[in-house]
């Protein structure tokens, strides 16, 4: 059992923040939270130029040369690039650069993946972690209400990024169910992790009033401060589609075991081996599986 000694990490909250955090990770050589000051953690003007160049290459946005002085945190710079979330709509969204057996984490019931960034840090800053983000949150795609359809789409994305295994899959809530079906479509899956929603802050509460829901999410730092009620409506539609999808889910015949970490609400078929772990063992078990 190890004790983290700092509490200053603030995770990214949307695709642009997630993407910028990875660009910083590339440039600086280590993972960062969204409120760390670029120059305060060793970034210099050459590094800043690399960030600006990555924004130009990937997002086709020409930022002024001094933008990093004006916006020295991921949070602040992301706010100027938020309109580009649609270009980063996924489904495959890299969460953390690195090596090892890649970990693919499928969105929980609200469709978002940035919450997996903290888990990625805890597993180790040098492991590759990808998220699969639900259609319908950003950009023009519509929500999908079928587990097999989502699983096929995600398996195709995963194969395109990593044509051969081994793979480690997981998710919280609906994400674990979809991961189980994705595993049936991929060779050499080492682990299917069903994660306690509490481990990945997956509990964006479903509140009928969008304004009230939004205020609560902002207070809990789950979404950027400029998030609009329109986004709440999108999340609500995605959540409804996933509830329908999971309710209609008929498990495919599969003998792959499922590893359950902590308390989860998913019901697994009787013929599937379910291994139960304490929630606190999650990062250690993932580290072992990723080795």
């Amino acid at each position, binding site marked *: 059992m190890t004790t983290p*000694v700092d509490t200053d990490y603030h995770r990214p909250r949307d695709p642009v923040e997630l993407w910028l955090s990875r660009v910083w990770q590339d440039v600086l050589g280590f993972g960062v939270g969204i409120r760390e000051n670029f120059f305060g953690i*060793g970034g210099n003007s050459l590094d800043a130029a690399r960030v600006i160049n990555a924004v130009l290459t990937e997002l086709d946005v020409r930022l002024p040369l*001094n933008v990093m002085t004006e916006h020295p945190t991921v949070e602040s710079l992301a706010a100027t690039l938020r309109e580009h979330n649609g270009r980063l709509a996924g489904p495959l969204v890299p969460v953390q650069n690195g090596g090892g057996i890649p970990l693919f984490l499928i969105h929980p019931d609200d469709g978002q993946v940035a919450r997996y960034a903290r888990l990625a840090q805890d597993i180790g800053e040098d492991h590759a972690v990808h998220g699969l983000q639900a259609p319908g949150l950003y950009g023009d795609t519509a929500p999908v209400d079928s587990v097999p359809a989502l699983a096929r789409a995600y398996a195709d994305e995963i194969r395109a990024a990593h044509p051969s295994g081994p793979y480690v899959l997981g998710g919280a809530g609906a994400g674990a169910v979809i991961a189980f079906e994705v595993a049936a479509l991929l060779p050499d899956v080492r682990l299917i992790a069903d994660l306690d929603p509490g481990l990945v802050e997956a509990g964006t509460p479903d509140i009928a009033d969008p304004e009230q829901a939004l205020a609560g999410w902002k207070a809990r730092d789950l979404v950027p401060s400029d998030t609009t009620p329109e986004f709440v409506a999108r999340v609500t539609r995605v959540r409804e589609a996933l509830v329908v999808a999971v309710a209609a889910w008929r498990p495919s015949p599969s003998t792959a075991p499922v590893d359950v970490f902590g308390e989860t609400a998913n019901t697994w078929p009787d013929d599937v081996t379910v291994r139960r772990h304490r929630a606190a063992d999650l990062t250690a078990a993932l580290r072992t599986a990723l080795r």
Partner: protein
Amino acid sequence: MNLPVRRRIADIAHDAPDRPALIGFDADLAEVALSWREFADRVAEAASRTTGPYAVVEAANTVDAAVAIAAALAAEVPVFPLDPATPPPERDVLLSQLKSRFGQEDHGVAYLLATGASTGIPKIAARPGPLRYDSRRTPSLVIRQTGWRTGQRHLIVGPLYHAAPFTSFVDAILDANTVVLQRFFAPQWTVDLIREHGVEWAQLTPTHMREILSTAPDPAHFDSLRAVLHTAAKCDDATKRGWLDLLGPQRVFELYGATEGIGVTLARGDEWLSHPGTVGRGVLTRIRIQDDTGRPTPPGTPGTVYLRTPDAITRADYLDHRTVRTTPDGFATVGDRGRLDDDGYLYLEPRAHDTINVGGEKVDPDEVEAALRHHHAVLDAVALAVPHDTLGSVVGVHVVLRPDTTVRRAELAAHCGRLLAGYKIPKHFTFVDRLPRTAAGKVQRRRLYPDSEGGAPPR
């Protein structure tokens, strides 16, 4: 002819009132230009308000900082250009050194410069003063040999709190230049400024040169340039040859000389091509290589580089009363090692000690290690140079954490950033169980090879 700074600036403004003196950029990167008339007025006004015993100027590359520096020189108050980003602990050390040495009026000093010298611990070097304009000696004969012309358009890329950009700025205003001040370095911007302002002369570091080359610039954009002078860190072959191709060998000059002003060598591009790797021959400077027993070595044999210049009057002494090492017959060294060839060309060798050179900035590994050990998660740490393809090297650390503790690398970096200047913040963190130490407790750095695990790959 020997003129006070105030008088010289007034004379230039009188002769060419409308010619631009300074072109800088504000926080929004909008251009700010001062004519010589405006510059002289602002300097005179600021000088009247500048009182001793010394003036500390937050020396960002801005028109305001440039005016403040010129005003202090005009008022004959010793001026210290300070890196605005200096963190409080380092600032305290520097300012207390200043205070103890300059408690009262002292007109024997023109300016003061922070120098890492060979140890990486901040020190202050003083240039005797007051400064005078002498048409035969401003700028020095050495600089005159690098294509410098009176009244030229001159680009300053490096920060004004560094010795080389600072002294070339001082020469520039005394020699009626139009100075273009690049607020911070971005390679494409440097190229654009040269083209847009018809820049004739610029001094660059090897890091600037590497970054500019990496933008694959069009040689035509450098047509206005009479010369580029480079100094500071040793320039690698590929970068040097890249610039010799870009400008032609007649327009590239390399100068070796310490902040302390003990002597200087100069190599023009064509000399470098016929003596690859050289930092040049002495200019008004005699070079002697001595072995560890103090005996001069023959050509080809490496040793400590000693220089002697008749211009000893301008030699700076350290404020903390440590001086450069000197010999009874007037040679002095800052501790660099090198050798001479049969033609008298000097070649430098890598430094013998553990100082980490980050793009020309010297970092003392002890200082980085001490900062890391100050963090409550860290039991032990060692810092060492990790190769980097544009900066030459960056700081890498091997860290032993306290038992049952984890810490994010970014947290350690932020912790160092609160105590140290930005370039000293480690870029590579490797967590290890123990460090190789000798029985006496000294870290065997040689047994720690640069390790990219967990850090950015060496570039």
